């Protein structure tokens, strides 16, 4: 009798969880479809609200971010639009639709980048900007597997010359992709960038609103975050253009 009661509660708990998850999934799906309809009816604020709700629930998907970028851009909020396009590019840098809309949004920027940064990492790992982090990781794992498979076959066969060239090729490719994957981890951890959100923001010399205004940046301009303080970020725009900005004025990519 006691066992039957225990089983009943067990199944009830599983069923409750299942129903809760299903309800949440249904809610997210409904929000998404509502967002799409709102966008088509040019009710961009409602579309932003619907897509933002899904993003806030933890969904990380380049298509969702792309839709958010589109909705913000149509709503005239260039800063937010570029922020979501940047976030989408991190997940899917090779999406042609995304790149097209991103370029369009960039053409509306007011601040011209003064010096193009030439990073040694960007030169060494040029392909990382063509593939997303997941693809790089899976490729590295696959190439690594093939390499060790060849090594194992060579060991078992006792013939030293067998598959020599493919093993070297696989080794080089595996090392390249593994290094790229680790660089992606490093970049995600230590390189933080942000996008200016309001139409115009003063970059100041200190951590108060009364500090001297050094220069002005406009919506959509991308900056590097060098230091994080309580209410302020120390940002780097270009060589010699460094200052402090309220963290509510930027969106971290």
């Amino acid at each position, binding site marked *: 009798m006691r066992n039957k009661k225990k089983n009943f509660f067990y199944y009830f708990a599983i069923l409750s969880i299942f129903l809760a998850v299903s309800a949440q999934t249904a809610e*997210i799906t409904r929000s998404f479809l509502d967002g799409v309809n709102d966008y088509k009816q040019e009710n961009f604020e409602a579309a932003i609200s619907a897509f933002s709700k899904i993003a806030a629930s933890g*969904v990380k998907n380049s*298509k*969702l971010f792309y839709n958010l970028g589109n909705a913000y*851009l149509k709503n005239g909020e260039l800063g937010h639009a570029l922020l979501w396009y940047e976030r989408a590019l991190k997940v899917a840098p090779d999406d042609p639709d995304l790149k097209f809309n991103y370029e369009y949004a960039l053409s509306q920027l007011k601040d011209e980048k003064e010096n193009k940064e030439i990073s040694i990492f960007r030169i060494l790992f040029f392909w990382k900007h063509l593939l997303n982090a997941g693809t790089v990781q899976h490729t590295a794992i696959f190439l690594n*597997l093939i390499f*060790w*498979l060849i090594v194992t076959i060579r060991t078992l066969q006792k013939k030293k010359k067998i598959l020599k060239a493919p093993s070297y090729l696989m080794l080089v490719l595996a090392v390249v992709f*593994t290094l790229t994957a680790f660089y992606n981890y490093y970049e995600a951890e230590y390189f933080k960038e942000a996008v200016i959100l309001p139409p115009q923001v003063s970059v100041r010399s200190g951590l108060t609103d009364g500090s001297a205004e050094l220069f002005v940046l406009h919506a959509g301009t991308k900056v590097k975050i060098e230091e994080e303080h309580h209410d302020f970020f120390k940002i780097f725009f270009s060589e010699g253009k460094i200052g402090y900005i309220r963290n509510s004025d930027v969106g971290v990519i």
Partner: protein
Amino acid sequence: MDGFGVRGERCAGRIFLCVMLMLAIAGVPMKAYSADIRAYVDQKSVQVGESLQLTVSVSGGGGDVDISPIHDFKVISRGTSTSVQIINGSMSRETAYNYALIPLREGNLSIPPLSVNVDGTVYQTQAITVQVSASRNVFVEAQVSNPNPYQGEQMIYTFKLYNAVRIANPKLDGPKFAGFTAKEIGESKIYRTVISGREYDCNELNYMLIPLSVGEKSIEPATLNCYVVKPRSIFDSFFPAIFRTEAVKVNVKPLPPYNGDVKFSGLVGKFDIQAQLENSRLNVGDSTTLAITLKGAGNIMDAESPEIKIPEEFKVYKDNPEEDIQLGMSGYSGRKTFRAALVPIKEGNYVLEAIQLCYFDVSKGSYEVCSTPKLALSVSPSKEKDKLEVTSATSEQVKPLKKKVEFTGRDILPLKEELDALETRKSLSPIRFALLLLIPALFCLMAKLFLALTRKSDDPARLMAQRAEKALKDACSCETSGEEFLSCLYRALVSVILSKAGTKGESLTYSEAAQILRSYGYTDETAEQAAGLLEKIESAKFSGRGLDKDFREELLVETKQMVRSLSS
């Protein structure tokens, strides 16, 4: 000259000693006189630049002459001379201090009384007046081309040395030109000229000056040190001389206030501007060079690229400016050319607006604006790559049909409506990623380990030892056949010996068996016993005699013991 003075003193000292010695011998009494001090000059009337000689004589001995009160002359020491005179048996001694004096200006110049210290007593000489008149043999002068320039205007400072007599070793100590940018113009000029009916050699030096600020300025005098050469009968005489110019006053005027529409370029002088297009007819994507040339006299090197209004349908690539500037007697002059490559991106007829240059004309004292004419540009559609060459039977060339696709409107692409937009793509954590990389490597290591373990069973030593054990076991179970029993014993013994050598084999001679065991560290006795047992088994095997039970038991026991002892 100091060298002559020292030698003179030594010589006088020697003469004095000789005279003293002679007097001592002759018994002439010595008489001491009080000091008599005199100052005199060799001439009382000289010209500017000429020198005169001042002598201060001290009779009765030496003294210290203080020449610091002399201000109107440059004083050069000419050494000391001493003379001794004996008149009517009494001896007198006189020391003369000689100086060359060079007058520093015209007029009646005074040599004030000089103090002479003789053995602690100070004597004063008489004051001397010298009349210095202007020299017309040698003189210098300095002048500027414009004593009232504008700020930034170029002017020429000229220094001239006129000499009707020969001079030697001239050294010019020129002014510092404080408050001006100064640059020497070329080499000095040497020519002959006539002034007031007299012929002079003239040395001329020129400097280009640009005043840096407004206000009254004074260019300090230039000083020339030299020797004036006066020919004598055989040898020339050299007299030191100093000639000095007057200070030159310059009043630098500020530029008048400017209220014009065209931006003032900062250029001061006289300038002109020209613009030229390399090609006024071109295709989309082709480039043409726009050359803007500023030319004139003044601070042209400071000219910056004039403002050019280029239509938006052109991309502009600016080049570094080209300068051809010379420094001459009118200051800096020449041309500065600014070039820019223009690349049209759209077809059409365009007009480049006139380029204007505003500068300050020093000759007119006002701001002037000069401009280039408007330039027309005709841009045709691009021919690049779009040219479709088709060779038909009639060899007709078909006109290109393809055109570069241009945006006719701009908008973003639509939303992505697929529901997979709601799937979260999780990326691997660094630890999981590293583990997934390590797993194949671990599998490979395991395979290697397995191989190493399996290969161990192929070891000949191990195989032969196993074989020996097996043969011994077979020998124990062989009850019927005597020959098979002996073969088993033989195999057991040979196998155990070969296992020591780590090689495979079926047979051994006695001597080989003993040698193997010796070489692997067994005693001679053991080796001999093993070889003996092997011989015994072989003898029993090949003799053909029957095996009684005792002999069989004895061989088995001996072989077992030997195999065990060698296996251990």
